[in-house]
C-alpha cells in the first residue's frame, strides 16, 4: 500500500519529531503568476519563526499554505504530522492542530466575544457549556480582556478585537499558531498591546509562525528569521541576522523598514 510507505517515511523526511512545520521546495502559482518559487524552511517545537520581506515577496501566501487555505502547485508541506499534499488529508484535523490569526481579526460580528471563543470548542470539540465558559474566561484572561466577555466585537477597539481573535484561536489549544500581519491594521499604541500578548505566548513555549513588519519585535522574539524576496527564501538565520544582513537585498529591505 503506497500510503503506508509514505507515513513510514515521514519521520525521516521531517528530521525527527521536533519539527512541527516543514516546507520543502514549495511552489505556488496564481493563474500565470508564480508567487512561491521553491521555498523551504522548518519550524521546531516551541520556536518562533518570523517571516519578513517586502510586499509581494510571498510571505503571507507561504503562511496561508501552512493552514491549507491555499493549495500548493508543487513541493511538500508537513504540519503537525499532517501531509498537506496527501489526497486523504483530513482538513478538520489539521485545523484542530493549527490556529491562525488574521490581519482583519475576522471575529463573528453577530456573536459576543465569549460566544466567538466558545463556538468551536462547543460545536467541534463538544465541550459542555460550563467547561466552555471556563475556557473562554481563561483565554480572555490570557489576553487581558476579561471584562469584555459579553461585549460584541463592534464595541471593541481594533487592538481588543485582535486580542479577542487570539483568544479564540487559543481556546482550540493548537499545537502551532500562525499570525498573518496581525498588527498591520493597528496604530502603534494598539500594536504594542497585541505584541505583548504574542510575546507572552512565546514565553509560554507556543510554537509560532508570524508574518510581520515589526522589525524590532522580530529581532527580540524570533528564534528564526526567514527573509523572503521575489518568492524565494533569500536568507535564514537567528534574530541577530537583522543586525548583520548578509545579502544586499535584506540590507536594502531593513534600511527601508526602519
Amino acid at each position, binding site marked *: 500500500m503506497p500510503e503506508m510507505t509514505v507515513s513510514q517515511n515521514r519521520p525521516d523526511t521531517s528530521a525527527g519529531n521536533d519539527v512541527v512545520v516543514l516546507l520543502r521546495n514549495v511552489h505556488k502559482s496564481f493563474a500565470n503568476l508564480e508567487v512561491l518559487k521553491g521555498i523551504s524552511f522548518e519550524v521546531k517545537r516551541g520556536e518562533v519563526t518570523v517571516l519578513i520581506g517586502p510586499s509581494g515577496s510571498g510571505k503571507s501566501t507561504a503562511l496561508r499554505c501552512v493552514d491549507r487555505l491555499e493549495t500548493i502547485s508543487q513541493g511538500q508541506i508537513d504540519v503537525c504530522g499532517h501531509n498537506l499534499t496527501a489526497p486523504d488529508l483530513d482538513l478538520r484535523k489539521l485545523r484542530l492542530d493549527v490556529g491562525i490569526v*488574521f490581519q482583519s481579526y*475576522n471575529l463573528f*460580528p453577530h456573536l459576543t466575544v465569549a460566544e466567538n471563543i466558545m463556538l468551536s470548542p462547543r460545536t467541534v470539540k463538544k465541550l459542555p457549556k460550563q467547561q466552555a465558559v471556563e475556557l473562554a474566561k481563561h483565554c480572555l484572561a490570557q489576553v487581558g480582556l476579561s471584562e469584555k466577555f459579553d461585549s460584541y466585537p463592534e464595541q471593541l477597539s481594533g487592538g481588543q478585537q485582535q486580542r479577542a481573535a487570539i483568544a479564540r484561536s487559543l481556546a482550540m489549544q493548537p499545537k502551532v499558531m500562525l499570525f498573518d500581519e496581525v498588527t498591520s491594521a493597528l496604530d502603534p499604541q494598539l500594536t504594542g498591546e497585541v505584541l505583548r500578548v504574542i510575546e507572552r505566548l512565546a514565553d509560554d513555549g507556543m510554537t509560532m509562525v508570524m508574518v510581520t513588519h515589526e522589525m524590532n519585535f522580530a529581532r527580540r522574539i524570533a528564534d528564526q528569521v526567514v527573509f523572503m524576496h521575489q518568492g524565494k527564501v533569500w536568507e535564514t538565520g537567528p534574530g541577530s541576522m537583522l543586525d548583520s544582513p548578509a545579502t544586499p537585498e535584506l540590507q536594502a529591505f531593513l534600511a527601508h523598514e526602519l
Partner: protein
Amino acid sequence: MTPTFGLIHIQFLLQGAVLTLGLSLCAFIGGGLMGLGIALCRVSANPALRGVSSFYIQMVQGVPLLVIMFAGYFGLPAMGLSVSPLVAAILSMTIWVGAYLGEFWRGSIQAVPKAQWEAAECLALSRLQRMYHVIIPQAVRNATPGTVGFMVQIVKNTSLASAVGFVELTRAGQLINNSTFQPFITFSVVALVYFALCYPLSAISHKLESRLARGMRTV
C-alpha cells in the same frame, strides 16, 4: 334595478381581503421554504445542484406570473390533475416566490465576507456548521429588510389569482362592479384595502433598513 355600492359590498370586499391575506401567507411560507432550498443549492459545492437551481430561477424570472397561474390552473387538469383555483394559485405563487426569494437570499449569503468563511473554516467547523453558526445568521440580518419589502410584492401579485377565478380582493371587486356598475367607488375601496395591507409592511421594511444601516448589530 341595480344595487348601489353599500355596506354589504364592503363586507364582501373584506372577505376577499381575508383570502388575499391567506393566499399571501401561504405563498410566503411555501415560497420561503422553496427559496431557502434554492438559495442553499445556489451556493452549494455540488455543480449539479447549482446548475438545476440556477435554471429554475432563470425559467421563473423569464415567465410572467400570470402565465404560471394559467399553466397551473389549465395545464395541470390537461395532464389529468384537476386543481381548484385556490390550489393552483398557491402552487403558482410558491413557485414564483421561491425563485425570487431564492435569488435574493443567495445574494445575502454571498454578501457575507469571504474572510468570515475562512475564519470559521480555520476553527475546524464543518461546512454545515459554518453555514448554520456563522454565515446564515449574518445573511438573515442582511436579507430581512428586503424580504419584508418583497412581501408587499407578494400581496399585490395575489391579485393575478383573480384570473383563474379565485375570489380574492380584486376578483371580489370585479364581481361587485359587474352588479353595481360603479367602478370608481368599487375599485377605490379595493385600492384602499390593498394599501392598508401593504403600507405596514413597507413601513417595517424601511425601519429595518435604517436600523441595519446604523450598525451590524440589531439587538
